[in-house]
């Protein structure tokens, strides 16, 4: 309970702007590097799944279960392998969660190329690799970005829980504020996490505009 403590101490915020900035930058690294790693894994895996459909169902089932695992529990279970209070404790599970979101969207995207388009590319003399780079990957960009938006936002949100086992990031503000019965850092943390998520989302939307201008009207 708070006794005479105001909800927000503006002076504290003013005095700690640099600190809050550092934590936000740290949080962005912890949350978004796993999303990038997952993207690097999802594209080749998605290609393999699009080529060998039998591979997809079991993989999808595995990731469906992974996605349902409570993050705090996973962070804790991984401590023996990654060590307590290291960034890897948080980043390894976040990569798995992001991959669970991205793999289905990558497969959908690669399958979305209409057969006539594929045949047209082949008829124009494109080999399989050139067709992949020039036709299939670009066509799947809107799908991938749709998945990336979901993955990035939930990763940013989940990374906050990592403060209970890991190190760094905005989640520390919650732990710190709670231990000191001091709501200002908690509120700052909530707002900054939400703003970071919003920024990542808008950035991805902008990226889609640049990389896939034809998808502007598509609601996704």
């Amino acid at each position, binding site marked *: *309970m*708070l006794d005479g403590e105001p*909800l927000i101490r503006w002076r504290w915020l003013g005095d700690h702007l640099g600190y809050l900035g550092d934590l936000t930058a740290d949080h962005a690294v912890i949350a978004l590097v796993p999303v990038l790693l997952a993207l690097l894994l999802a594209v080749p895996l998605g290609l393999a799944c699009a080529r060998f459909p039998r591979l*997809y169902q079991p993989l*999808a*089932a595995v*990731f*469906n*279960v992974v*996605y*349902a*695992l*409570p*993050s*705090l*529990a*996973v962070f*804790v*279970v991984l*401590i*023996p392998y990654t060590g307590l209070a290291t960034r890897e404790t948080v980043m390894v599970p976040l990569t798995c969660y992001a991959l*669970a*979101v991205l*793999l*289905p*969207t990558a497969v959908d995207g690669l399958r979305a190329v209409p057969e006539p388009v594929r045949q047209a590319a082949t008829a124009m003399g494109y080999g399989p690799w050139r067709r992949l780079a020039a036709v299939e990957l670009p066509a799947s960009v809107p799908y991938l970005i*749709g*998945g990336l938006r*979901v993955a990035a*936002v*939930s990763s*940013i*949100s*989940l990374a*906050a*829980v990592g*403060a*209970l*086992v890991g190190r760094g990031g*905005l*989640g520390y*503000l*919650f*732990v710190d*504020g*709670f231990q000191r*019965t*001091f*709501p200002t850092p*908690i*509120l700052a*943390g*909530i707002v900054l*996490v*939400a703003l970071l*998520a*919003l920024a990542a*989302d808008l950035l991805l939307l902008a990226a889609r505009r640049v990389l896939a201008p034809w998808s502007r009207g598509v609601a996704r």
Partner: protein
Amino acid sequence: MNWLGWLHDFFADPAHRSGPDSIVHRVLEHLAFSAEALGLAALVALPLGLLIGYSGRGLFLVTALAGVARALPTLGLVTLAVLLAGVGETAVLLPLTALAAPPMLVAAAEGVRGTDPDVRDAARGIGLTHPQTLLRVCVPAAAPTLLAGVRTASVQVIATATVAAYVGLGGLGRYVIDGLATRNYPTTVGGALLVVLLAVAVQLLFALFVRLASPPGARPVRAVRSARAAGSAGGGGASAGGSAPDDDPAGSPALVKESP
């Protein structure tokens, strides 16, 4: 560094066999608390979602709300609620309810929205009133989507109730948080494993529900397709908004999670 040994220590500990710190007691606490939050959320979100989906008004608002909710860090909300209202069940119940409501709302709205318009018109045409159409036609057709939303909410709440132990709540989170605080890894890992098992069990339970609750017309997308190909109109079929949960590998990315 020995995982299996830790688990053995955890499950063999007499303190975890009986009394207030026993596994059974903690699991029941965890379930009771999660069910309370889910019940509250369902009470608010499901009727509202059904109405929004049926009338088609406010759909945009629902989607926007779900996006915002996904970005809110529950740990922050829980700690703040406890600072403001003191340690107590209500203080933690509110953030959990707020966490569970958006996926249910979205699922109910989108499920009803996804009912085949022809089927809705037919129901109106044979003289059903609006409430009857909603309850007897749209709700059964939306059942798989609806259940998928409740499943997402349930798994999230069960996972987050673990975090709530950080602010003094009982349940399985006690093992995880207390173990971390005292560097007692057997307890932490044992508790974490129990939470994972509980979440997976709830997932499986809902997969079963979805199978049982799907109306015959909404179940296999293939059957609906072949019925259409055969030229038979409708076949009582309402496709589940194109998102039969069984075919949807990552849950519905639209509903998705924030599961601490």
